[in-house]
């Protein structure tokens, strides 16, 4: 039996006694992985034994049913026995077409394969990748004077600054046959800096040919640092803080190596004679480019433009190689890659820019979707990459931001990329290309087209010839059944259709747009439950995976990726007995079909969702013990309080799933929208906590001091774009019991800039405008989002009226879903950003979950005590 299987099985046996579901499930996953790697996974007997083991474990852990532990043990022994009986057959690679387990072939290869997934190739490709030069198209302002003899001067400046940093850390651990270890570490840091500046000045006059002069200026910097360290695993207790201690331990390591090794305990179940090499890479890169253009005629300035672009990328990757002697037996890696782009351009004051049209995400995306022949990357921009449009008050600058983050994994046991659409690392790198950025001025020129919504809608209908018993789910292509919006002969987006057609259309690999797929995944819960959808998709997957043609295979893959995505986003409420049973039995089926890779991916995702427990007490710090001496508000800086409020808010905000918001707009079920309820409760609690702190102060001076403090905190919150806490505090300050009291002019003036934000007039025009100017990361006020969703739900029918689609009934009205998607997608995008704040336990402790507050009645009483009401006296008179 393979060592790996043996260890994993024995570990699971031990874990069984703990009765800890999470532990048992992850250990089971380890057994599954070990078996799929080391055994002949085509063997029916072995597969059956694995399925029965999973069945019984799932019954116990996923579904919390009573199971005899001896039964598990028996099953486990059976798997162990059979895995010894059927080891991986090296001679018959043809058997493993479906599963990409080609570890052993790579082992034999000596020539490095450029396509091989390892960290060095990844880095090489990244280093080859160059940020393309930025050339925004400035509008050419025509010369309006009649003077033909004047001298025109055009000056163009291009500046480019690049800064790349790379830190490679290699660590080698050699396990000696007696179980002891030697550890070696090598760190290499490289920093490169480069700036270039090009200036071109061309002069032209009527009777002279054009003269151009170019200046160039470049600077480079290079800096390298290498550090080597040999340490012994046993002496890991050395303190990093003491340089002498570290120095001594290094010396000791060299001089008394043998002795040090003996000090190592042999509890680690390391494989004798094995060694592992791990390599971590951190790479950051920043390229900023600035282009400016100036046109003069006879010293008179005709036009001046400026635009800049900042590209940043961040890679963090880790790879672990395991060697047995000199042979590589396993390679695993994971990491994340993040890229962001910021384009800013100054618009000429005199260019014809009308009032900015209100941009809806959908409109924004339709702009890209409008021209489908357009580059695919352009299309991607609106869907997978966060994009924000910001137009400031005087419309002199335009800014666009793009951000993308990808998590990936690779291993010799086959690719399992976390970003499902990306098959491998090289694809991943190609996908992150930002070559085609639309120049902002063109963007504005295009906007009138978007504002003009198609009024006459032409329906495209399905052929009526389809026999009623026909199952759409088994069709390759659903396009014929989907109703589209059309404008001037051009097919725009999906307008509606029967449920199954919409599902098929979302899972097919051709025709359907990424934008639609995204909208479908976000909004499907408004017309079909997750359980029903998953069951339909499983059926579709199975049907497609049975066919031999490549189109069916591609659809099957696509369908599978959709299933994984749905599982990834299921809410705790949805993870009931039926859904878990559906998914686990699908896992068994995948094993039965020999597809261990898929079965493992799916099982891991399901496990992650079930494990995903969340403790609100930890976030709010109510489980922390109280300090001896209680703190007060003035012990902390306003900025720090704002930071900690934001820390709490953003954690609660990130928990909210789109599904919860959709459900809330429909049925306001607190059980279904748990995270949303937590978030709104936090809002209310903070508001009442602030009221209490102000109104319970004994003197006017103290009340004003507290009031002023909160105004300062609010200012910080607004700067941080935390509109949740910002409005919660504002609602407290503006609440009648507080607002009716007398306040100093100082406070009244300070409040002026804030009170307008809460004006409910014109559908919260002021707040919406403020939110538009916000730069992520941001926590929005969720109330308005809920209100918008509620009204979109109330105002749009779920199905298209049958008289509008040739009498067909039950056609899902997808326009309603587009509207919901437009609102939800902006939320989802904001969730991709995170604040860089560290939790400060002392401050969070001081908040004490905002529980220490008086109720509304008491607030009113205190308010009337401070300033008696003249209402009653008036009515009496």
């Amino acid at each position, binding site marked *: 039996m393979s060592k790996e299987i043996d260890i994993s099985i024995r570990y699971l046996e031990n874990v069984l006694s703990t009765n800890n579901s999470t532990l048992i499930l992850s250990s089971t996953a380890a057994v599954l992985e070990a078996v799929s790697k080391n055994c002949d996974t085509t063997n029916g007997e072995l597969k059956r034994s694995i399925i029965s083991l999973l069945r019984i474990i799932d019954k116990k852990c996923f579904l919390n049913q009573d199971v005899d532990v001896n039964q598990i043990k028996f099953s486990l022994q059976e798997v162990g026995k059979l895995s010894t009986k059927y080891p991986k057959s090296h001679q018959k690679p043809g058997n493993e077409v479906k599963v990409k387990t080609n570890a052993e072939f790579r082992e034999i290869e000596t020539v490095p394969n450029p396509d091989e997934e390892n960290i060095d190739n990844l880095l090489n490709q990244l280093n080859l990748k160059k940020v393309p030069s930025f050339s925004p198209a400035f509008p050419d302002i025509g010369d309006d004077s009649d003077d033909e003899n004047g001298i025109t001067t055009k000056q163009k400046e291009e500046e480019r600054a690049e800064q790349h940093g790379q830190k490679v850390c290699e660590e080698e651990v050699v396990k000696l046959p007696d179980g002891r270890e030697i550890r070696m570490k090598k760190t290499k840091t490289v920093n490169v800096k480069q700036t270039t500046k090009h200036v071109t000045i061309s002069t032209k006059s009527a009777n002279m040919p054009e003269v151009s002069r170019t200046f160039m200026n470049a600077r480079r910097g290079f800096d390298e640092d290498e550090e080597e360290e040999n340490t012994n695993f046993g002496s890991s207790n050395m303190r990093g803080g003491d340089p002498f201690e570290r120095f001594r331990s290094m010396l000791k390591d060299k001089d008394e190596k043998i002795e040090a090794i003996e000090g190592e305990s042999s509890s680690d179940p390391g494989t004798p004679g094995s060694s592992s090499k791990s390599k971590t890479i951190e790479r950051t890169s920043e390229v900023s480019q600035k282009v400016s253009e100036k046109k003069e005629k006879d010293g008179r300035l005709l036009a001046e433009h400026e635009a800049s672009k900042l590209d940043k990328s961040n890679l963090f990757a880790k790879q672990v190689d395991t060697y047995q002697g000199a042979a590589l037996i396993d390679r695993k890696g994971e990491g994340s890659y993040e890229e962001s782009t910021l384009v800013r351009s100054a618009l000429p004051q005199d260019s014809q820019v009308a009032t900015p049209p209100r941009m809806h995400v959908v409109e924004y995306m339709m702009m890209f979707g409008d021209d489908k022949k357009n580059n695919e990357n352009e299309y991607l921009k609106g869907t997978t990459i966060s994009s924000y449009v910001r137009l400031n008050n005087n419309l002199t600058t335009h800014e666009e931001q793009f951000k993308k983050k990808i998590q990936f994994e690779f291993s010799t046991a086959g690719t399992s990329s976390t970003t499902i659409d990306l098959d491998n690392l090289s694809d991943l790198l190609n996908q992150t290309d930002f070559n085609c950025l639309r120049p902002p001025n063109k963007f504005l020129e295009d906007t009138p087209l978007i504002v003009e919504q198609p009024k006459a809608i032409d329906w495209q209908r399905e052929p009526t010839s389809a026999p009623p018993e026909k199952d759409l789910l088994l069709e390759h292509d659903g396009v014929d059944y989907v109703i589209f919006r059309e404008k001037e002969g051009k097919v725009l987006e999906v307008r509606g259709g029967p449920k199954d057609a919409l599902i098929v259309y979302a899972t097919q690999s051709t025709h359907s747009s990424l934008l639609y797929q995204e909208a479908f995944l976000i909004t499907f819960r408004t017309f079909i439950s997750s359980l029903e959808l998953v069951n339909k998709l499983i059926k579709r997957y199975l049907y497609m995976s049975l066919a031999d043609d490549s189109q069916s295979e591609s659809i099957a893959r696509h369908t599978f990726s959709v299933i994984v995505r749905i599982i990834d986003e299921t809410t705790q409420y949805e993870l009931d007995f039926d859904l878990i049973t559906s998914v686990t039995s699908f896992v068994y089926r995948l094993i039965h079909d020999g597809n261990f890779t898929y079965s493992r991916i799916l099982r891991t995702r399901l496990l992650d969702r079930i494990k995903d427990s969340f403790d609100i007490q930890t976030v709010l710090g109510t489980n922390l013990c109280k300090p001896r001496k209680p703190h007060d508000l003035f012990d902390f800086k306003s900025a720090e309080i704002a930071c900690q409020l934001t820390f709490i808010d953003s954690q609660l905000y990130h928990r909210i799933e789109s599904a919860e918001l959709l459900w809330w707009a429909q049925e306001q079920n607190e059980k279904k929208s748990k995270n949303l309820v937590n978030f*709104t409760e936090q809002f209310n609690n903070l508001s009442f906590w602030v009221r209490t702190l102000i109104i319970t102060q004994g003197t006017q001076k103290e009340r004003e001091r507290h009031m002023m403090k909160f105004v300062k905190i609010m200012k910080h919150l607004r700067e941080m774009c935390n509109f949740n806490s910002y409005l919660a505090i504002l609602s407290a300050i503006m609440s009648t019991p507080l607002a009716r009291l007398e306040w100093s002019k100082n406070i009244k003036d300070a409040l002026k800039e804030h009170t307008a934000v809460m004006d409910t007039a014109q*559908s919260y025009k002021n707040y919406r405008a403020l939110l538009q100017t916000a730069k992520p990361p941001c926590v929005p006020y969720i109330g308005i989002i809920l209100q918008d969703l509620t*009204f979109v739900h109330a105002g749009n029918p779920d199905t298209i009226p049958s008289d509008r689609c040739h009498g067909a009934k039950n056609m899902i009205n997808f326009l309603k879903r587009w*509207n919901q998607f437009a609102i939800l997608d902006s939320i989802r995008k904001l969730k991709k950003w995170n604040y860089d704040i560290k939790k400060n336990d002392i401050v969070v402790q001081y908040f004490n979950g905002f529980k220490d507050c008086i109720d509304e009645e008491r607030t009113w009483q205190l308010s009337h005590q401070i300033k008696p009401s003249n209402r009653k006296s008036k009515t009496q008179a």
Partner: protein
Amino acid sequence: MREFKVVVLGSGGVGKSALTVQFVSSTFIEKYDPTIEDFYRKEIEVDGQPSVLEILDTAGTEQFSSMRDLYIKNGQGFVVVYSITSQQTFHDIRNMKEQIVRVKGSENVPILLVGNKCDLSHQRQVRSEEGLALAESWSCPFTECSAKNNQNVNVTFAEIVREMNYVQNKSRQSKSCCSLM
């Protein structure tokens, strides 16, 4: 033209949003967008006098109890809605008048009590007499309507306009009579 700010209050699920939607968008609109500035505005003619209503509907945000003060503060007239099919929603609004009066700091506040969902008479839990009795104790008008069937919807909003006109005139009169004295 006169402009009034009307706040629609009531528990979740009483059909407030449906009521507002029915009122502000009597015609079928292809692109329905509640985020636009004038979505909640509508012109209405009552007793030969045109005025503009700006509706603030709290639907979807009932959970934000800390915001209720602000909603009330912003409004001039109040439409308090319950569902005739749910005793609970009727119970929820019992002390709404007191809240409004407290925030506005005046007894003379235009309020209208509305029992919605009267199309579901077979599921009725709140009798018309109960609604009427509460309205009497609040000394305000009372209607029953159905947003779903567009029954009495415009009448409801016309009624609150009348009430606002009435209260405005009354306070003006009392002021002028005070100054006379």
